[in-house]
């Protein structure tokens, strides 16, 4: 029998498709809805030390082949979120991963410690939001050293909870950053986050987003994501959650062949609907049947051999 299951950080996922952070993941109900539509695991929207309402709209829009967003890390703050995380962990049928951000090492520790206690399957450390430069300065994931520091600090307070470092293709040093995260104790890597850009409305004569810049996701960033995963795979031993522009089974397979252990799906919810998870799974199955594969292990990283 054809098997799409993967083992990730000690958990078994029925399929490799993980809801990416910031999409849908605001409540237990919304995650449940995503799971009903076929996600193998889910990641909550990033949570920080304090409540944030985020940027003003327009914060999200879509263009040919992509989404641009500068939601601005809106979230209720960790203290308003722990109950929700616990409820999610205890009621949802797939592994629930928390996501966190902060503006300095100390706050990373505070949030991580509280989040770890909720029992989440893992904590994804968002080091790569491109939309909060004005509030928080340069993203952490640009620098190997800074990334290592944050991961080490987080690791020191989370006990056995696995840590995932979420990286950015905006760093030309992404491979070094990944290595540094691994060295600091990260248990997995997510690559990539959105890539920053600007759209101008020539009639309004201003950027479309209130934040002016915004992170770009969807198909247009897939080649940058695949390249990142391909290179990181060569450099680290920890698993990689390949993320960025996965809309179809073919997209997912590109990442898996580049070496991804699992796949993050975000904008695909817009491009193909909430059942994007089911659709991608089905498409992967068709491909594997045609090619005579039984398990994803047979094709993971296969590009490195050719």
């Amino acid at each position: 029998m054809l098997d799409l299951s993967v083992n990730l950080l000690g958990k078994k996922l029925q399929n490799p498709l993980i809801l990416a952070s910031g999409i849908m993941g605001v409540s237990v109900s919304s995650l449940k809805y995503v799971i009903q539509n076929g996600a193998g695991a889910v990641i909550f929207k990033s949570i920080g030390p304090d409540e944030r309402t985020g940027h003003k709209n327009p914060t999200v829009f879509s263009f040919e082949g992509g989404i641009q967003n500068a939601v601005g890390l809106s979230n209720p703050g960790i203290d308003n979120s722990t109950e929700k995380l616990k409820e999610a962990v205890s009621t949802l049928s797939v592994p629930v991963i928390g996501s966190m951000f902060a503006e300095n090492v100390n706050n990373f520790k505070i949030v991580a410690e509280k989040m770890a206690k909720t029992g989440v399957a893992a904590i994804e450390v968002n080091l790569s939001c491109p939309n909060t430069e004005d509030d928080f300065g340069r993203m952490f994931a640009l620098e190997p050293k800074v990334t290592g520091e944050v991961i080490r600090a987080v690791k020191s307070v989370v006990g056995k909870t696995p840590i995932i470092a979420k990286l950015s293709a905006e760093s030309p040093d992404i491979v070094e950053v990944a290595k540094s995260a691994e060295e600091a104790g990260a248990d997995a890597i997510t690559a990539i986050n959105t890539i920053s850009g600007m759209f101008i409305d020539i009639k309004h004569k201003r950027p479309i987003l209130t934040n002016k810049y915004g992170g770009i996701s969807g198909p247009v960033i897939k080649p940058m994501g695949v390249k990142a995963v391909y290179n990181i795979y060569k450099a680290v031993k920890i698993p990689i959650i390949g993320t960025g522009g996965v809309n179809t089974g073919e997209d997912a397979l590109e990442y898996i062949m580049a070496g991804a252990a699992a796949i993050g799906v975000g904008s695909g919810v817009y491009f193909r609907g909430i059942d994007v998870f089911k659709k991608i799974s089905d498409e992967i199955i068709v491909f594997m049947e045609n090619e005579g594969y039984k398990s994803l292990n047979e094709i993971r990283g296969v590009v490195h051999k050719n």
Partner: protein
Amino acid sequence: MKKIDKPLALPIKKIVRESERVKTFIFDYDFPGKPGQFVMCWVPGFDEKPFGIIKKEGEGFSISVAAVGNTTKALHMMDVGDLLGFRGPYGSHFKLPEKGSIALIAGGYGMAPLSYLAQEARKINLEVYLFVGANKKEELLYMDWMKEIGVKVHTATDDGSYGYSGFNTELFKIYVEKMIFGKVFIVGPEIMEFNATQICYEKNIPFEVSLERYMKCGFGLCGQCCVDSTGWRMCVEGPVLNQDELKKVTEFGKYHITSSGKIKKL
């Protein structure tokens, strides 16, 4: 129906003051959209907010906006020729029965989507009974238009300045005892909606309600508008829900999520 997902800049063609708090902004553009669906309207320099789409016969499209906060007040300051940005149409829409009588229960700017629905209903010769509520007479919208197209208008004002003195739901309750409505359509403040749906459930009348939640993306990605306990997105699976769907929305009439993601009681 093609969606526009990147804001489309359109100049205001005409502005109509409907009441003290509400202005209608008319655009010379055939924006797609069915009754109950909404557009995201970008007011440059302020914010981008959801408004029900209205396509009055002979016009491109329009939105009717109540000035309630920063963005809507800024919108009220704008002039003919000024540009706004539009995305949409988003969300589910009302489904009319093929024949018979329908009732519309409207509170505040709930009249916006329901006026468009009334027009479509009259086009196919449905009997349309409107139960509209407002604080006072001056707040009632589209009365001329509705009468013109043959809608049977029943008004209720809090201060009794026009029609029934009290809530429109009370008025509806009186009529529902003596009349048969094939379907009821409800848009207004959530408490009004809640009361109206209770009546319909009691009387076993099929209905549709538009459930407004805070919107960011408007197209199903950010999760801001998801409701308990189904997780449905009010910008995709909603805002229009029917009596069976609504039963599963346990938060209806109780609470919603703020823009930071916190729970806020009604």
